[in-house]
Structures are given as structure tokens and as C-alpha cells.
């Protein structure tokens, strides 16, 4: 029976930055969930979650051997750590914004 949960229930995420680009490593806590995440955590849905940051491009790289994905968001850090007016210029907290995404697990 399928149920709706937050991504946080089944996956880990870690943010990293380079300039104005954010990457989020998304790792399945149990590799059996890889297919469900691949189908649901699409670049389009990630772009919607980060809409307030106006990403100019969202890319998802798939790493099936690691049961993980690498998600890239361009131009979402307000210029990056040396230019942003925000408190989190690195975007370190943004991995947990992604983990708030609702998904359905079988």
C-alpha cells in the first residue's frame, strides 16, 4: 500500500556551493527507494520547490551505484557567499528545503 511521506523520511541531503551554483547530494537511506525517488524527485519538481530563488537551470545527475542523485541549481545563491545579503550565503540550509518535498512510497 502506498503512502505519502516527506522525502526526509527516506533520504539524506547535503548542500554544497561553488559561486552562485548550489548542488544538493540526495542519498537514499535504503537503496530500494532509488526507483521511487528517481520517478518523483524530478528537476521540474525541484525547480518548483526553489521557485522563490528563481533558478535559471536545474539538472539532476543519477548515480544508481550509490543510490544517490546530484542536483544542481544555477543562480540561486544571490551571487554566492561573497555577494549574498542573506545569512546563509553558502545555501547550506537549503538541503533541508528539498527534504520537505512530499513523495509517495509503495
Amino acid at each position, binding site marked *: 500500500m502506498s503512502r505519502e511521506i516527506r522525502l526526509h523520511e527516506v533520504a539524506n541531503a547535503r548542500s*554544497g556551493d561553488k*559561486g552562485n551554483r548550489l*548542488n544538493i547530494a540526495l542519498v537514499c537511506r535504503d537503496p530500494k527507494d532509488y526507483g521511487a525517488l528517481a520517478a518523483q524527485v524530478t528537476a521540474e519538481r525541484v525547480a518548483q520547490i526553489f521557485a522563490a530563488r528563481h533558478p535559471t537551470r536545474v539538472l539532476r*545527475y543519477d*548515480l544508481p*551505484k*550509490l543510490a544517490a542523485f546530484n542536483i544542481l541549481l544555477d543562480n540561486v545563491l544571490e551571487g554566492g557567499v*561573497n555577494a549574498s545579503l542573506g545569512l546563509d550565503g553558502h545555501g547550506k540550509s*537549503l538541503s533541508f*528545503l528539498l527534504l520537505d518535498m512530499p513523495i509517495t512510497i509503495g
Partner: protein
Amino acid sequence: MAARVFIGAGAGFAGDRSDAAGPVVDALAAADGPRFLIYETLAERTLALCQIERRKDPARGYSPALERMLTPVLARCLANGIKVVGNFGAANPPAAARRIGELARSLGLRAPRIAVVEGDDLSGLLSAAEFAAREIDGTMLAQARDIISANLYLGAEPIAQALDQGADIVVTGRVADSALALGPLLHAFRWRADDWDRLAAGTLAGHLLECAAQITGGYFADPGYKDVPNLAEVGYPIAEVDADSGMTITKPAGTGGVVNRLTVTEQLLYEIHDPSAYLAPDVVLDLGAVEVAEIGKDRVRVTGARGKPAPDTLKATVCVDGGVLGEAEISYAGPNATARAQLAADIIIERLRQRAPALTVRVDAIGATSILGSSGRPLDLRAAANDIRLRFAAQSADAAQVAMLLDEVEALYCAGPAGGAGVRRHLTPRLASASCLIERRYATPRVTMIEGTA
């Protein structure tokens, strides 16, 4: 030739703990094979700050973390033949080497052989316009006048050369973080410069170690979901690298933290863009076939790194003056705090709009929204909260305009909504940075051995 090399991480950034390397050194001292302790202490901006220091005083300009980091472990490293490799040199590697020599003398130790790696500094080699023409994904340098610092990321070869020449300690300026590990591996295993898969494995080892605790349970814990035992005393990592390029990531016995598939995989992808093409000076690393397997308690095997020929160009970080950042905060608490904070924010925005229209002002409401807002958008406080700290921020080359914002926030004490409290204000000089791709001919890596003088 060695069958297995042991590389420990002493620090992952300049602000890192200085007592974490101790247990790593103890574990390395008990290991059988070539042993190295690496330190990554050079964030993008740190080097520019060091360049400014060096201009003021030619004896300075190295990482301020050097003494704090090395003092607790230098004696044990020298006594046990553990070689130290660190980018403490920053803008002035020879001065850092002399300082380490003095440190050894003051601790009563034998004079270490200290090697200096230079040749990353591009100051004076290219004009601002020439850097601007080489900028990656941006046009920030097109408006820049003075270049404060410009440094190439050197590769592992000069570090290996320094170790070949018998250095106890290798001090570099800007090198690729991963080169701090690949250099010792080139030295110990004599890997060929076109043995791409092995160079890729060594680069991967460096990447996994470069943020120290981030692979042993740091930056990982999420209580109830990802529990980490004794995070307060987290052990820093050790990579055991085999000549055939497989490696095991572990940590010193008796320390806190955890090494498992998840901690390693999170760090594997940290700050990665295209996982099939992680660009390093010595090789292009492809992570697509990497496998991560738990083989024991706090022991994770990492295999499958593949390499492609090194890129034609080298990355450089170029720093220029970024004006000043001003930040001011004020709190509102108790009944109707939300409405009073909203009124205060509206007052500041309205007064600055009239008096400094060019200034973009960011408003955060700590306690309601401190991270997810956007600069230049009005604050819209809908969430009810009874303890809100407003934070205003602006940045400009015109310090007077930024100061005006800080003055306006302070004036809220008497002229703003009821109960405004706890104003704090800061003006911070800012450095802006850009990345460039530079032709290899501008790199002039060179190794100088500075003999001990004790």
C-alpha cells in the same frame, strides 16, 4: 614500494578544531606504511585576506591557523615520521615555513626539513581585463578595477617532488584541495602522470578527506533520522589507500562519530557538479562507477574511480574589492510583536527608498523567516511569532550609503514602533571573487627546500 599508504586529515578549514588531529596522529603512528597528515585551511576568501596582510607586512600573509593547528602535533609527527602537508602558506609560503621552523625550535624539537611549494600566484601576470576575458560563468571582473589576489590551483606534482626530496613538512599556497592527498600518493606509489584511473583514485581520496569531519559524522547528524554517537568528540578521517587504487575510509579508535555508506556518499558528492567530470589539475575524475561498501565498524571501502586526461586549463580564483556589507538587527517581543516588526521593516524600507534609492536592502525576520526570503523583496510577515529579531543588510562600494542603513535601524530605538530592543550593527569589508580558466603556461610550480636551523 609501499603497498598501502595512510593519510589522515588534520583540519578541513581554517576555523576547524585544533585538537582533532591528535587522535589521528596517534592512529597514524601505529600504522605500518608511509603516513601523512594533511591540512586544508584555505577558503576562497582567506587567500585574498592573506594577500592584503602580506602587502602590509612581508613577514606575514600565511594562514593564521598554522600555529594553532601544528603546535599540538608537530612533536609526534616528527618523532614518528609522519609527513605533514598543508596549504597554510596562503599568500606567503616561505614565511609560513620560517614560522614552522621557529615553532619547532620553541618546542625544543629537531629542525624539520620544510619544503615550500610556490607558483600559484598570478599577481602581475595578467591584467584585470585579461582575467575578465577568462572568467567562468560571469561578468563580475568586467567591472573590477584592482585585483586583490589571483591564484591558480596547482596540482599534486610539486608536492610529490617536495616529499621525494625528503621534506618532513610541505607548505603550499593555493593547490587543489585534493592534491594535498594525491601528492603523497604520487610520491609513495610512483604513479605515472598519465595513469588516469590511479590519479583519479588519489584525487577522490583527497576529495573525501578535504572537509575532515564531514565524512565521519560531522555535517550529518539529524537526531532520530541520522544519529551519530558522541559527535562532540568526532574523530577525523584516515584514508588507507592501496597501490591498486582501492581505499578504505576510517577514523581513530575511541573517537566519536561514524563512518558508513551514508556519511561517505554524502561527502563523495559534496560540491560536485557533473559527477562524470570533476575537474582537478592532474586528472578529470569520473565518479559514475564508484562503489561504497561497509566492510567493518567505521570502515568503508571505496573503489571504482575512473580518470580522464587532465584539462588543458587550470582554475584560478580572482578576488576584488566588494565594497562593504552592513548588517543591523533589532528585536520585538511579546503581544503583537509581528505587527510591530512589520511596521519597523516598512519604516526602514520607506526611509531608505527616499534617501538611498540605489541601495538594495534585505530584511530577514529571525524567528519567522531568516533564510528563505529574498533580497530586495518587501518583508511580508504573516506567521505569528512573539519573539522576532529583524535583520537588515545592504552592500555597496559607497560605505556612506551602507552606514545610513545602520543609522536608520539604530534610530528605531526612539523613533520606531514600541518595544524595539537590542540593536547590534556591523560594517564588514567585502571581497568579491570569480573563477577563471587560465592557460597552463602561466603556472610556475617550484619547490624550495628550507633546511631546519635549530
